[in-house]
């Protein structure tokens, strides 16, 4: 096991292994997303209160979950990078940021589209769930701008890691916002006492699409870490040999 972890930490080994793993993550993820989308759109029964508008959750919930998951990954890896000075950990954090930003955008956009017919408004300023999720989008933008502004990779790693860790307080706020304060947003459906409160015909497509997006996200994250590693290792012998195709 330890041997495996050490090998994984070796950049050339990771670069090759990730390339082999990406298609498996991508294909299984896309198949599950296809199942969840088709079953959710066409086979799940309409909701008793929300009618067919409830189907938007099949796009919204995975995006919202991944928006927080990506930030959590960033906070953990940025922390590991700061404490143990592991360069690969910083590369993971940097790779997760643009993905997190995209899924946060998707969560906000689909939530807004759902809110229009259900709450009668696209957006409600001051609502704790909506506002904390929007703050997370700005944290992602801030992180990426900060990295882009600092040329020295090691300095960019440190400064951006501090930003991520400070902003991490926002993640539990997003999660518990609907319980701590009164929010337009409905309470949790899946992760709650007594198990999920949703019909099986609605639940399975949702679980399928959440798992599918997790795998799809895994493929994208691996691909982006690979690029980060290649960039960081650009002056090494193994990159030179790989690109020029020489064995010296």
């Amino acid at each position: 096991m330890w041997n495996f972890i050490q090998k994984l930490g070796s950049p050339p080994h990771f670069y090759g292994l990730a390339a082999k793993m990406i298609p498996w993550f991508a294909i299984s993820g896309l198949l599950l997303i296809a199942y969840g989308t088709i079953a959710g759109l066409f086979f799940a029964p309409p909701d008793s209160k929300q009618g067919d508008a409830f189907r938007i959750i099949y796009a919204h919930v995975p995006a919202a979950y991944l928006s927080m998951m990506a930030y959590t990954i960033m906070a953990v890896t940025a922390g590991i990078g700061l404490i143990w000075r592991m360069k690969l950990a910083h590369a993971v954090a940097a790779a997760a940021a643009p993905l997190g930003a995209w899924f946060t955008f998707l969560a906000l956009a689909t939530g807004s589209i759902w809110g229009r017919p259900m709450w009668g408004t696209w957006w409600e300023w001051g609502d704790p769930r909506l506002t904390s999720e929007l703050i997370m989008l700005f944290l992602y933008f801030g992180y990426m701008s900060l990295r882009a502004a600092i040329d020295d990779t090691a300095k960019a790693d440190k400064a951006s890691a501090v930003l991520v860790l400070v902003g991490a307080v926002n993640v539990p706020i997003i999660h518990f916002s609907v319980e701590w304060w009164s929010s337009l947003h409905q309470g949790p459906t899946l992760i709650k006492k007594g198990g999920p409160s949703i019909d099986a015909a609605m639940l399975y497509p949702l679980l399928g699409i959440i798992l599918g997006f997790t795998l799809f996200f895994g493929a994208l994250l691996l691909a982006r870490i690979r690029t980060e590693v290649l960039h960081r290792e650009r002056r090494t012998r193994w990159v030179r040999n790989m690109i020029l195709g020489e064995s010296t």
Partner: protein
Amino acid sequence: MMDTLAMGGYGAYVWSSFALMFIVMVACVGQARGRQRRVYQDIEKRLRAMEASK
């Protein structure tokens, strides 16, 4: 068929949500591939220039 597209009157909201989901998926893949290609080509260009100046 038309009933399915109408989504009980919520068609515009449901379909635009899933269109956005699809667009974000394509954008994520496109961005990741584009960056990989750029990084690879930059390194290759630099290495070839170094080879040529030897």
